[in-house]
Structures are given as C-alpha cells and as structure tokens.
C-alpha cells in the first residue's frame, strides 16, 4: 500500500502526466489573469435582475398624501421609473432636478425610500421637489437587495409588464436624461 506516494504522483513510472498538472493549473490561472488585466476596469455593480420581472413586493406609504408602492403598479401597461433613493443621500439631492424634468416630460416615477423616516422624506420632498407618484418605505433595504441594487440612488426602467428593462446606477445627470427617455420609449414596445 502506498497511499502517500500515489497521491503525490511521484511514482517513477506511474502517472507521469500528474507531474505536469501543476504547470497546467498555473497556465489556466495565467490565462484568466491576463484576460482580467486587459479588461477595461469597470467597477460598477450591475443587477442580475435586468431583463427579469420585478420581484413581488408591497411597500407601505412613507410620504404624506402618497400611496405606497407594490409590484402590481408596474403591470398596468405603461412603462415607469422606479427610483431607489433616501433622504440622507447626497447624490439623491443632485439628481432631484433631473427627476423633475422627467416628470415634466410625462414619465410616471415611483420611489423606494431606503432606511428612511416619514418626517425626513417629507422634508426632502419639500426642499428638493416631488416628482413621485408614490413612495414606498424599505426600512431594511429588503427590496433594494431583491432588486440587486448596490446603493442609492439607482433608477430602474420598468416596462408595462413589470419587467426591468434598464438599470441606471448612481445619480441621474442632465446628459443621462435623453438615454432614459429613449429606454422608456423602447420599453413601450414589447421585446
């Protein structure tokens, strides 16, 4: 019995190919690494949910005079934006004017407030404008995680059948607006 030596492939005649296994493994690692090194460095975390239906959810209302959000709202035939935001988030302030522009262009926008309080949301909407049709409260980031969103703000284009068509990571800048409008127009036609 020679458990040790066969396992190591050191037998003089047996399993000589085993001796080249480490070199092959290293070659494999090398190929992977070479590819990784030449890849353009994009560190944005995109959701795996793009192209898939929204997860089922019903979030309670958090903004005064506005209903909460549920996944059923997104299956009424019109494309909508789902904006993931928080009153404590600075880039959310930066994107507020662009959301108002989109609203003015007739885009219905629903929002999910992450880890927020009614008072804070009300103050935020009063100060920075209110583009939302409805605002749901997600105090423990549950929906955010289910959406595959890695931070605030993020905006999802959802078509009339409740399928996520596009994810916008980070705040919406002025030059992002046309692209979002285009995505919404495309979302109107079935895939």
């Amino acid at each position: 019995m020679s458990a040790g030596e066969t396992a190591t492939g050191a037998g003089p005649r047996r399993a000589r190919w085993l001796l080249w296994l480490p070199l092959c493994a290293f070659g494999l690692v090398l190929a992977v690494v070479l590819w990784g090194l030449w890849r353009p460095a994009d560190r944005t975390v995109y959701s795996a949910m793009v192209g898939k239906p929204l997860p089922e959810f019903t979030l309670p209302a958090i903004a005064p005079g506005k209903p909460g959000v549920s996944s059923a709202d997104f299956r009424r035939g019109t494309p909508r934006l789902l904006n993931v935001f928080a009153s404590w988030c600075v880039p959310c302030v930066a994107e507020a004017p662009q959301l108002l522009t989109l609203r003015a262009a007739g885009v219905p926008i629903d929002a999910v407030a992450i880890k927020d309080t009614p008072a804070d949301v009300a103050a935020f909407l009063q100060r920075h404008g209110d583009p939302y049709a409805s605002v749901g409260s997600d105090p423990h980031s549950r929906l955010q995680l289910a959406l595959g969103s890695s931070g605030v703000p993020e905006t999802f284009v959802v078509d009339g059948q409740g399928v996520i068509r596009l994810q916008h990571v980070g705040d919406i800048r002025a030059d992002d607006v046309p692209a979002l409008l285009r995505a919404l127009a495309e979302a109107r036609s079935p895939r």
Partner: protein
Amino acid sequence: MTAETGLVALWLAAALALAQLVLGALALKPGADAARAAPTVRAVATVQGALALVAMAALIAAFLASDMSVALVAANSHSMKPWLYKFAGAWGNHEGSMLLWVTILGLAGAAVARLEHRLRADTLVATLAAQATIALGFYAFLLFASNPFARLDPAPADGAGLNPLLQDPGLAFHPPTLYAGYVGLSVAFSFAVGALVTRDVGTGFARAMRPWVLGAWIFLTLGITAGSYWAYYELGWGGWWFWDPVENASLMPWLAATALLHSVSVLATRDGLRAWTVMLAVVAFSMSMIGTFLVRSGILTSVHAFAVDPRRGAFILALLVIYIGGALLLFGLRIGTVRQGKLFEAVSREGALVANNLLLTVILGIVLIGTFYPIVAAAMGVQLSVGPPFFDSTAGPVALLLVAVLAAGPVMRWRRDEAGEVAQRLFPAIAATLFAGVGAFVLGGPIAPLPLLGIALGVGLAVASVAPLAKRDLRRAPLQLWGMVVAHLGVAVALIGMAASTAYTQERLVAVGTGDPARVAGFTVRLEGVRPLVGDNWTALEGRLAVTLDDAPVAVLRPQVRYFTTPVTTTNESAILTRWDGQLYAVLGTLGEDGRWQLRLWWKPMVTLIWFGGFLIALGGALALVGHQWRLWRQRRRADDLAEATAWGAA
C-alpha cells in the same frame, strides 16, 4: 542625498544578485567545484542583503525627515504626521511596500548564506542562485517600474498625507511581519529549486529546509492574526475575516506553508513524500507571489488596493511566468528522476499527514478559485463578487473535516497503526466532542449546523491535542512535541472562538439621545455625551458611553468619529470592552437631524479566542523551531566533545 544613497544601494544590490546568479550557475557546471565557489556565493548573498537593507533604511530616513522632494514621501506623507506613521508610512504605499518585500527577500537570502551549514555545497549554491534570480526580477521591477526614490522638482511645500485607515500602530508591525512570512517562503522555494537542480531531494534536504519553513510560517501566522485583529477594530464593521482578495492572498500561502510544514516533517523523519514536499515548497511561495500580484496589479477590487496600475501588474505577471512557470517546468522535468521515498500504510501518522495535506490543498484550491472566479465570470460577461457565503459553505466543511484528521493524526504511530487502537486513544476527545455538541445544542439556543460542529469539534480537538502528552514525563517531553501540542491547541482555541462568536453574536443598531439607554446581551449602554477632541493630525467627536451590567458600572467606552484633513477622510474608531468571555464593541455613527446619535453595538462572545488561538499556533511553531535547533546544537556539541575526547585519547 539620502534618496540617492538608497537608489545606488538598490542598483548595487541588483548587480550583486546578477553576480550571485552567474557565479552560482558557473559553479554548477559539470566539472566545476561547487564547494570551492560556495564561500564566494555566500559572501555575495550577504552583501546583497545588506545593500537592500541600506536602501530600505534610506527610504525610512527620507520619510522621517519629511523630505518632500522625494515623490513617494510627498504623495504619502505629511510633516504634521506623528513620527511612528512617518516611519511606518515608508511601507504604507506601493513602492515602499515592494522595497520592503525585496529587502526581506535579500535578508532571507543573506540569512541562508550565513546560517545554513547542513545543505550539500552544490545544493546550497543552487539555492542561493535561485534566491538571487527571484531577487533580480523584483529589483528590476522596483528600478524600472516602481522607483521609490524618484525626485520631484520643484518639491511641494508639504505632502498629501497617509491614508488615515493606515494611521494605526498596526501599520508598524503588520506588513513587516506578514512580509517576513510571505517572502520567507522564498527560501523554501529556492531550496526546492536548488534540490531539483542538484537532484538532492532527501532527508538531509528536508532537515535543512524545515527551520526556514517553520520560521516563515510563524511570521505568516502572526501576520495574519494581527491583520485580522487590526481590521476588526480599525474598519469598524465588527468582522474579523472578510474573505477579501488580499486576505485570501495571505491565507493561500499560509495554507500551502502549513501543508509544507507537515510534509517536510514526514520527509525529514520518515523519508516519504519527496515529490509532494518539493511541490508544496514551490506552491507556497508561488502563492505569495500571486498574492503580491493580486494586491499590486489592482486586478481585483479590495480595501487593500492602494495602488492600481495595469502596467505594474503586467510586469509582476511576467515575473510570475518566469519563476512559477520555470519552477513547475523544472519540477515536471526533474522530479521523475528523484528516487521514490519510503512507503507506509494508510492508517498511520504518515497517512494522517497525507490526509491533512490533501485537505489543506483542497481548501487552498477553494480559496484560489473563489478569489479568481470574479475575473473568470467577468470574462464570460457576468459581473459578480464571491463573498463569505461561498467560502463559509465550501471551505467551512472541509476545514472541519481537517480538524477531525488533526485530532487523530498526532496520536497515531508512524508507518502503521490499528484503527481500533487509534479510536481507543481518541476516546476522551470523542466524548468531549459529543458532550460539547449536545451541550451547545441544548443550552445555547438556536444555532446553525456549521458553528455547532465548530464548537463541538473545537472542544474535541482541544482534548485530543494534549493527548500526545498523556503518560509522558512532561519535563522530559521534547520541546518539538510541546510545540505541536500548543499549535494544535491553538487551532482548537481559535476554532471555538470563530464558531462561538459566529453563533452567539448580538447586534444592536440604535439612535440614542444623551442619557438614553441601549441594551445588548445584558449590558446597558448609556450615551453620556459627545465631545470634540483634537489629535496630532485629526479632530474627532468622541462619545462617552457608560456601560453597566446588572446595574453595576463596568466600564466607560469612548468610540470616536475621526476627521482627517490630509487627505480628507473620516474613520470610525471603535471602542472595545474586553471581558474574559467576549468583547463589547461600540461604533459611533452620525448625528441625526433629531439630535440623536446612531450607535452600533455588538456583543461578541469568545471572539478574543480567535486571536489568542492564532498566537498559540505561532507560539507552538516557535517552540518547535527552538526544539529542533536545540537538539541540533546538542548533537553538534556532543560530536565535538567526542572528537575532543578522541584527540585527548590519542595524545
């Protein structure tokens, strides 16, 4: 001038490394006399190591003097910084840490040149030549792609400051310790290459290599343990291991070195596992180099990635191809000509050690795949990250299996043993495992299977690890045996700490006003106030938390939010109360608009055992190292005495 001195020393060291390589190669030519060349090669290696040290000292001097005309100092230091961080800041950046890397590489080579007298002359020369080859590549990397001594003209008035996360006494000790381990493994690599070149793989080679492996492994263990504790209190997340690529980069060499440590013992005492030992020696340092590449190339995102530059990555990659590829090629070509070692039964100490090696290798494979998988996935167009859920559920069970083997191995006999007798010897340990498992299940409340197994096996291993001392005269037990017992006990202690803190940690996130109590695990924490504070190069808000347990005051915790100006950064300084049965960990968050402070509290039972266990593992290694060297010294002295007596007898 200091910077130029350093640069000249670096160039000279590179030249000497080249000389060392050429001299070694010439001495190994057929017909050449390696024994005659050995003293010269030894001398060159010593001076080369000394020159690398001079370069490192010059960089440290430039940092201490805040010489802002040196680009590296200007980019990473600031004249207002406390001196300790000026000193340690020398390696808190890409160029400086690479210089530290080659300095330790050079010093390791010098140490081999000075201290190694057991190796055959030709194998020694080949080893030193291999060490010089590695050094040469990394000198070239520094000189051509990462010059730490580059000047700025005109010099800026002051520097940009050091990343505040690194402004911690930990920076002074963690990188040098870890690097001593990482790079110390280069010696094992060079030994393996040397032995392959001269076809000298046997017990003598293993005995000579063992202390070097042991030494590097001790440093690596200490480095990882200290790094884990540093991340735990400095990053303020309350976690002690994040499966971050850079942590994995230090874990992989450790796993390989641990396997090597055990297989080299088999080779030294039983002359088995020849090919495997050589393989592991190559793999261990290869993992160090791959780790360096991972960190330095910025190929993976990580909290440690303070230098991201694909060109540097490409350079290190080329070095990896030469060294790892070359060594593995040599292995494939030569190892077939190495005579097979001694054989053994499956149920035996060797068998258990082979199982230990295979399991460690499996874990190493899992960590390697998990670390590289994001790149593979990206190549296939999928973005993902691999985190604790993957590693915990794959490496965890294998590690527990390893713990079971670890408990059994030391009570087994060499060559062959009876399974029934082994079970008998393990009876107390098996009983303790069951007892602890049932106890934790019944008394401890709901618990996931993995932590439960961890606690049970940890207690069992603690009992099993002292079993080799049973029925022995403790005063006469060799130090190596004590080393093994202490190290294995350390594994048990760390495992219990990991499992218990995972299972029973309690966390509270609360918003509190002054005077409001927050409760966690029986403690009442009351925010008494928040006051501003001024440090050397930061200002802070410090919370004063009065901690009471059963209405009796226990301690006052003072977590801080620190604001650094150069560069502008905020860090959370956690406050930790250490008790015998765990730690209360407090982090001060932000002030809400309602005037209440966010406060995050954790009670982490047994968590200190993790690092205490890590320390015990390293201590065990140190005992074994001293034990082996002591025996060697005694043997040599006895031989000398004998020679002297013979000489007297002759006279």
